[in-house]
């Protein structure tokens, strides 16, 4: 029988009058939160330039800029992967270990193909470098496939599946490094030096990671906003069951998302090796998965899925690295101790700010009841301790007392507001 065409939509004139278009909530492609992030980055730059006693941002901007650019690119590359996974409603905790594994696989491949050059710290053939890079990226694909299989077929929650690989892959990378060096070289080793000029060139030319990051960001942005697969990723993260019932092959979309996450981490792992001239599975990328997730969250991704943008994540990564750099400029020595602390504080403040509108409008209290009362000294104590360790005891005491007073006033103001 003839199929009746029931789709008048196909014939409807373009720009039909049925529904007036609303003004969009984005200006020049950026949303409100993203503009705020951009402003925060500018403010952080200015403040650091002023507060830093060397004024290195004003005197020698190029050094700081290349430093921030390299670090941002290396974080940003796998933060883009984390963004895709998070929008698809999942989480990938394993990217730090994937970085270590990718570097190790690359170095082991090169060692196996030209052992004498590698051991003699000499250049290797470019086809060997290409083989190392290809092996690393292929490993990313395999790990992504493993994640997707564990999550869709075995039905492990993503948190559990990638927690297992977070722990397992680093150990696997270390074992791989030791047994490969044992088999190929005279001694067992926990690291493999990589002195090839190709890697050296990447280390010395900051534009390489920055360009790779920019191209990857553009690719991811097009993927998420302008392709059917990107829309399906959003749909999957927003409502998985509805996505399946809408005829979307959700398991394939997940497969893609986890492969993209693992392969971007593998790509980042190559830059880690280049940057440090060594594949060192024990510590490379350790804990960095959380920085990537933090960049995505600061950039506006929702961990419940369906929400997030590429510009947001790019700005989130820049913001994190700018703040980390600012602190190292201000404290001068031993600033790496504070890196985790900074990331933690930035995430809390960024997400609190994104709820600021709801907080102000809904009349919700920031310091309610007994919990709020206990939070006041807790927060003041932390603030005071941090400042006294970085800027001296007097500043610490002043900050602690100041926070106590400010939070106390906020508490009084909130109680008064609710009483009326």
């Amino acid at each position, binding site marked *: *029988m003839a*199929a*009746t*065409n*029931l*789709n*008048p*939509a*196909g*014939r*409807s004139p*373009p*720009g*039909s009058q*049925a*529904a*007036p*278009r*609303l*003004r*969009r909530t984005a200006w020049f492609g950026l949303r409100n939160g993203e503009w705020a992030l951009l402003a925060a980055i500018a403010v952080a730059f200015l403040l650091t330039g002023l507060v830093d006693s060397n004024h290195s941002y004003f005197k020698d901007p190029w050094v700081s800029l290349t430093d921030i650019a390299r670090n941002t690119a290396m974080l940003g590359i796998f933060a883009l992967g984390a963004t895709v996974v998070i929008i698809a409603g999942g989480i990938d905790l394993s990217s730090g270990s994937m970085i270590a594994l990718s570097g190790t696989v690359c170095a082991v491949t090169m060692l196996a193909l030209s052992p004498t050059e590698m051991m003699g710290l000499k250049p290797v053939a470019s086809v060997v470098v290409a083989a190392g890079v290809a092996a690393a990226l292929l490993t990313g694909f395999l790990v992504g496939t493993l994640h997707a299989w564990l999550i869709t077929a075995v039905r492990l929650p993503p948190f559990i599946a990638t927690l297992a690989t977070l722990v397992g892959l680093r150990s696997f990378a270390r074992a791989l490094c030791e047994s490969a060096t044992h088999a190929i070289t005279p001694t067992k080793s926990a690291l493999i030096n990589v002195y090839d000029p190709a890697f050296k060139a990447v280390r010395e030319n900051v534009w390489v990671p920055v360009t790779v990051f920019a191209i990857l960001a553009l690719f991811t942005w*097009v993927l998420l*906003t*302008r*392709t*059917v697969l*990107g*829309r399906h990723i*959003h*749909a999957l*993260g*927003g*409502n998985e*069951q*509805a*996505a*399946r*019932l*809408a*005829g*979307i*092959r959700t398991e394939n979309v997940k497969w893609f998302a986890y492969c993209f996450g693992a392969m971007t981490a593998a790509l980042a792992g190559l830059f880690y090796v280049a940057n440090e001239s060594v594949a060192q599975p024990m510590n490379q990328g350790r804990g960095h998965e959380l920085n990537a997730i933090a960049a995505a969250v600061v950039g506006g991704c929702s961990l419940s899925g*369906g*929400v997030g943008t590429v510009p947001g994540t790019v700005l989130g990564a820049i913001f994190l690295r700018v703040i980390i750099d600012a602190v190292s400029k201000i404290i001068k020595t031993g600033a790496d101790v504070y890196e985790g602390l900074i990331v933690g504080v930035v995430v809390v403040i960024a997400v609190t700010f994104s709820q600021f509108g709801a907080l102000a*409008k809904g009349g919700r209290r920031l310091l309610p009841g007994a919990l709020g009362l206990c939070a006041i000294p807790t927060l003041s104590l932390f603030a005071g301790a941090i400042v006294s360790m970085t800027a001296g005891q007097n500043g610490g005491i002043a900050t602690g007392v100041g926070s106590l007073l400010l939070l106390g006033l906020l508490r009084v103001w909130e109680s008064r507001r609710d009483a009326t």
Partner: protein
Amino acid sequence: MTTPLPFAVRMLGITKRFPGVVALDDVTLEVRRGEVHAICGENGAGKSTLMKILSGVYQPDCGILEVDGSAASFTGTRDAERSGIAIIHQELALVEDLPVAANVFLGRERRGLLGLVDDRSMEDECERLFSLLECSVSPRDRTGSLRVGDQQLVEIAKALSLEASIVVMDEPTSALTEAESVRLERTIQRLVSQGTTILYISHKMDEVFRLADRITVLRDGRHVKTVDTSATSPREVTGWMVGRDIAGHGFHQERPRGAKILEVRQLTLPWPEHPRGYRLKDISFDLHAGEILGVAGLMGAGRTELLEVLFGAGEDTWTGTVSLYGKSVRFDHPSEACRARIAMVSEDRKRLGLFPDLDVAGNVSLCALHEALRNGLLSRAAEEDLAAGPVRDTGVKTPGLHAAITGLSGGNQQKCIIGRWLLTKPEVLLLDDPTRGIDVGAKAELYTLIDRLCRQGLGVILTSSELPELLTLADRIIVLAEGRLTAELPRSGATEARIMEAATAG
């Protein structure tokens, strides 16, 4: 009503504004002690907001609340509970992983020796309450393992354990089977005979007229009328609810019936973990183009499972044959059914249909995105043109294609989802209880839409929990009872009584 009873609750001049809307505008509600007072109104009329003010969830912007003759002001549900008001929400608020007794006493756990939780005494009290409610559930059962009807009784037991003198029930029967509804009605009558006041929110006129002493009608956040049930008729009340007289739908004119599209033979869906052993057994029927086939049955009869099998959405493997245009088919994934031009609008709109993070256009275009590709990339303009068609044809009322889908009313959301599927140019449309939770006016619009689609040549399979809906729309009705097909009735031979008889057949 011979002697007017004193008022249990008086809400005078209640106004409540939310950003952008006035949910309640100068509403007055007076409830006499010991009566069943029904509150009727379309979705969005303000019934639930009014009840949330009564139970302390919201505070009114202005107006007076009196309970048992004295002024009251609640800043939380605990305050309301202390004044003897308990509310049973439409969406049940139970912790599924806890045992039943723990849910009944949640937040008010009884303590025993050393301040430890006294499970024993709570379970005994639960047992006592359940026997009052004719409920055979054990207090130790995991709450999530209960049927919806029994979960509702757990909520009622919670209200009873508070010794509430005023119980608010927000659409309690929307998820119940006929038998469970009857049991609930008995419970309500028993509560009333013990002096409890009941506020009963419902769409269903037959229930309201069986139970209520008086009826208050709200419309668009305003009070329309309060009347004695004996002095009015269901038709009059529905008229007040929608602000117009709902005409009987003229869908009974013969629709031309086309060729056979779908043939289902001996369809069986096993269910190994259940004593019955099957979800569906030996189901056979045909579907023709231009025909609406109604599927009736109580909850758990297998209506949804049947549609899921046809759509490839089920997880389990089934036996039997399904032929589409004479060719045997077996779909393992909804995408295969889509390609074969079958579409399904699933039962639970929020959980199974909507994408809250996509806007109206994104929700409508989702299944036909390849048509919005320009040079291999999605074009927003093309996508909007694509979505504009079904949005207009199904009559979605939306401020624009960029509007958030969650901001639309249930009826408009459902039209968006139907529109989404129309873009796939289906030849078979499976509608699983499409008007559930949708107000009267929007229902009528959906009926017109379904009738029109059918006249355009679609074969429609429609399930519904409301028999009048099937009798209004369907050309033929098949009845399922516990997974078996117990009757196939032409429209001329179908009555509510005959359908119920078949649906309850062993």
